[in-house]
């Protein structure tokens, strides 16, 4: 638990903890306020702060505070789920590349560098606009409200694994030459056993660090795609798509555009500080 001494870990982790608690307590707050994040009230559009609406209302008269918390739940859910999925994918690819080396390594790293170098957002815009009907997604799933959630998670996972893969590959390369791995080899352990039992546990640090950095990166990506109308789709709230509506009323109600962005900024900053602090705390070789 020495990691907690790091001020960056404390700040980043603290902010994320507070946000998670706030987001999970939304139902209780909604009950106290007697409203729901989706309750439309066209008579009180773009209202200022009041007792009933602590932060005012949006362009459809929905309570802004509840919307923000609901949006945070969705953004955090997408960020964490996709980061975990990307970590699994990236660990697999990095482990295979670093362990087997040679041509497989060259090919996988070429692919990784290629994905990093590509103009990803334009390609994601096309992918996000893809017609699910043509992809053969079952109609029941296609029409469900959560479809845009699944889609955005799949999309950002597809491009988010590269950082983890590179870090894992690098560490695997150096672990591979260490005595305990050689000893396992000499004892006749299979490749699978060496990778999963001997190497994987030693990869915990780079994986944890890369995953917490990835959460921030993915929340940014999700927010920009949702903002462009290609990510999380309304009526589901996300910080990104709340800004789409706020852009149109920016001259009338500027604060509607300020809050969601500030929350994205704060959350991503917390993830980045947490990742960086964890790296410094857990990896003494990196300490300077």
């Amino acid at each position, binding site marked *: 638990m020495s990691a907690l001494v790091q001020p960056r870990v404390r700040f980043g982790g603290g902010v994320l903890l507070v946000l998670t608690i706030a987001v999970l307590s939304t139902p209780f707050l909604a009950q106290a306020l007697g409203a729901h994040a989706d309750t439309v009230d066209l008579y009180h559009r773009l209202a200022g702060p009041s007792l009933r609406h602590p932060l005012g209302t949006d362009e459809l008269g929905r309570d802004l505070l509840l919307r923000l918390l609901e949006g945070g739940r969705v953004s955090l859910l997408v960020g964490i789920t996709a980061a975990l999925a990307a970590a699994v994918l990236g660990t697999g690819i990095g482990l295979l590349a670093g362990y087997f080396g040679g041509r497989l390594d060259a090919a996988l790293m070429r692919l990784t560098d290629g994905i990093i170098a590509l*103009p990803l957002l334009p390609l994601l815009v096309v992918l996000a606009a893809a017609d699910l009907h*043509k992809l053969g997604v079952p109609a029941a799933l296609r029409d469900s409200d959560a479809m845009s959630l699944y889609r955005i998670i799949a999309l950002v996972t597809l491009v988010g694994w590269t950082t983890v893969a590179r870090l894992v590959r690098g560490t695997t390369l150096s672990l591979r030459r260490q005595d305990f791995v050689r000893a396992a080899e000499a004892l006749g352990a299979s490749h699978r056993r060496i990778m999963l039992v001997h190497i994987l546990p030693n990869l915990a640090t780079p994986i944890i660090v890369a995953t917490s950095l990835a959460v921030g990166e993915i929340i940014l990506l999700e927010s920009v795609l949702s903002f462009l109308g290609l990510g999380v789709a309304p009526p589901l709230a996300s910080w990104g798509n709340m800004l789409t509506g706020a852009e149109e009323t*920016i001259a009338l109600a500027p604060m509607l555009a300020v809050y969601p962005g500030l929350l994205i900024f704060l959350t991503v900053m917390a993830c980045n500080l947490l990742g960086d602090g964890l790296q410094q705390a857990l990896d003494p070789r990196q300490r300077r």
Partner: protein
Amino acid sequence: MSRFVVRRVFEIMVVLAIMSLVIYALIGLMPGDPVNVMIASNPHLTPADAARLKALYGLDKPLLERYAAWAAAALHGDFGYSRLYARPTLAVLLPRLGNTALLMGASFALTLALAWPMGVLAARRPGSWLDDVANFASFATISMPSFWLALMLILVFAVQLGWLPPGGATTIGAGGVADRADHLVLPVITLTLVNFGPHLRYMRAAMIDTLNHDYIRTARAKGAGEARILTRHALRNALIPLITVVALSFGSLFSGALVTETMFAYPGMGKLIYDAVLGNDYNLALAGLLFATLMTLLANFAADLAYAAADPRIAYR
């Protein structure tokens, strides 16, 4: 060296060919197809007409066959017609290329001019107040959602203060260099800030690494001045790993340009691709994405060459 250039050019062409097939297939996944779009705009079309049109345009053929036909035409410089603009795709695309190059070039130069000196100064004394400021600046800008930053800049400088135009590239009826520059200020600031953090961090790390080497101590022992050590001895060596970083950052620079251009309604490639995708303009989206990919590949290639030029220890064969 020349063999290396030939090999890399060949590689770029192979990657471009693969990417064109991938992008072609992706574009095919966009909702509807060109004939559906025609049906929507002309209610008098019968299903028989639609089938005839599909056969006429070859839309009833399998994907690979259609791709081959498109690729053959594209190799002759024919990228088809843009549906949205009703003009040949290249005629729409090429002027936009210049606008994007201007935005990206100006922002990139400004990014390096800010991030690199700050990175060098931060690396001189890790843990100093200057280093703290640099670290905070890099974390803050890395964590900043680019579209929100653009929105806030528009809110403050265009809506509330009225100092700068909120979007576009020129004022209708006006013109001239000053007008273009006015329209570039906010987009360039946005794109610069979102790309600033990584470059600062890489420069700082590379300089800290270089400053720990023996030859720096030797230079100090010989009585070289601090400025001379930093620029002549350390910076030259720190720059070498940064060339790769600069090349790999080109893709994200383009992604940033898409957001920035869309936010400021700036007529560049990024906004063109976004509009083409949303407007079901298949030819334009395809050509736009391919040009963006080509630009990235060429930037990487240029970085490889610069790498060899900067470090005499590297010889490409």
